[in-house]
């Protein structure tokens, strides 16, 4: 499979000269399977460019996996061009709620006055699903979700194909109330999603000193994401969901700090970057461009 980052900023789109290297668009990752099926992880503002790139394609079926419905993971949906192509089947997956259906919750955003187009007026055929806690097969891959620690109903996704695994936990605070390094793996939020993944995209929003002022906000600091990734024995860790206040230079300092905390695995830790692609197959994991 091949993953391409459309957006990796957290919380709020943050375009500008200070963020141009790693990008200002919010969470969205396209995953192309060997079977040529397309999965899209989250629908942040990075979804707009993915949709533009898909315009010339004839794909009739797309699967959009939403980790949760905070706006930074949803705002791109209304600007995703395949939605406005009649005849396209778009399957939307998201966390279950005991109160409202996924469609009703998404329609809160996709309706006036927040958005001019109503969900019911979208030309594509939309099908809504609860995030699959039992693995579902899509083309050549299986996808499984698990609820994880964040604010409100939130899941992470694990995609397996041909012996390779990509895990996606963009908004996650597994350390809440526990010491990760001492905790049995089974009791760590998200561990089952990330366990021995070849590639893990994980929330890395805060420096350690910043986290002290954001405990319980649903995000991780560098100390936590490294402890989580080491515990899960992941092979490549992609620091994701960059804080909107962090400049490119600050992100690179954060990467240096992260690599220092995982001796021997420095090259396996990188920053997510808009446009970055990651290929996973039996020969291993290849990133392009190779972040600094």
């Amino acid at each position, binding site marked *: 499979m091949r993953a391409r980052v459309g957006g990796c900023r957290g919380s709020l789109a943050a375009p500008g000269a200070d963020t141009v290297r790693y990008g200002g668009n919010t969470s969205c990752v396209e995953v192309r399977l060997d079977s040529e099926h397309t999965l899209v992880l989250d629908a942040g503002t990075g979804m707009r460019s993915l949709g533009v790139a898909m315009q010339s394609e004839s794909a009739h079926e797309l699967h959009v996996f939403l980790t949760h419905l905070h706006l930074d993971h949803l705002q791109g949906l209304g600007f995703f061009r395949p939605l406005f192509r009649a005849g396209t089947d778009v399957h939307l997956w998201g966390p*279950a709620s*005991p109160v409202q259906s996924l469609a009703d919750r998404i329609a809160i955003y996709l309706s006036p006055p927040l958005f001019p187009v109503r969900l019911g007026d979208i030309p594509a055929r939309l099908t809504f699903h609860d995030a699959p806690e039992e693995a579902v097969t899509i083309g050549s891959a299986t996808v499984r979700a*698990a609820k*994880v620690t964040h604010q409100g*109903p939130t899941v992470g996704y694990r995609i397996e194909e041909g012996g390779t695994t990509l895990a996606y936990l963009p908004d996650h605070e597994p350390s809440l109330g526990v010491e990760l390094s001492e905790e*049995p*793996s*089974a*009791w760590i*939020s998200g561990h089952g999603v990330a366990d021995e993944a070849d590639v893990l995209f994980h929330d890395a929003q805060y420096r350690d000193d910043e986290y002290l002022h954001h405990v319980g906000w649903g995000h991780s600091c560098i100390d936590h994401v490294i402890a989580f990734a080491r515990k899960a024995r992941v092979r490549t860790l992609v620091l994701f969901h960059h804080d909107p206040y962090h400049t490119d230079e600050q992100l690179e300092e954060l990467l240096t700090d992260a690599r220092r905390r995982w001796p021997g695995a420095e090259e396996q830790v990188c920053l997510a970057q808009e446009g970055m692609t990651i290929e996973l197959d039996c020969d291993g994991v290849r990133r392009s461009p190779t972040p600094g």
Partner: protein
Amino acid sequence: MTTVASTGSAPKSLPLILARELASNLATPIFLIDATGTLVFYNDAAALLIGKPFAELGEIPALEFGAVLEMSEPDGSPVRRRDTPAGIAFSHRRPAHRTLVATGYDGVRRVVEVTAFPLFGAAEELHGVVNVFWEQAATGGGV
């Protein structure tokens, strides 16, 4: 009604994880039972009732729990497992509260108020039961 299995080293569900984190940070004795009926965790305050820390005993199958913490009526007569608040919460999927006597490894009989309630997930699946004990007073020596 569905249930979520979680025993052994299998990843625990988020409701159980969050319940354990809460229990770990409280001074009130709390026992967590998963959807299969296995006691998967108790906190330090509960360890004082049992007389042994969780790290020593580990997860305990439902059928063996009576040997770890004996529960009886206030008059000393035995209480059936299914009639304890945890048994009711697990079997009938509803909260329950009773006054009982708990006797741990140290042999001390403690009068306890026991409240148990089921943990349902977003799809109303059962993740387990939270069993909370409030000790009223020690009632004397060993059994």
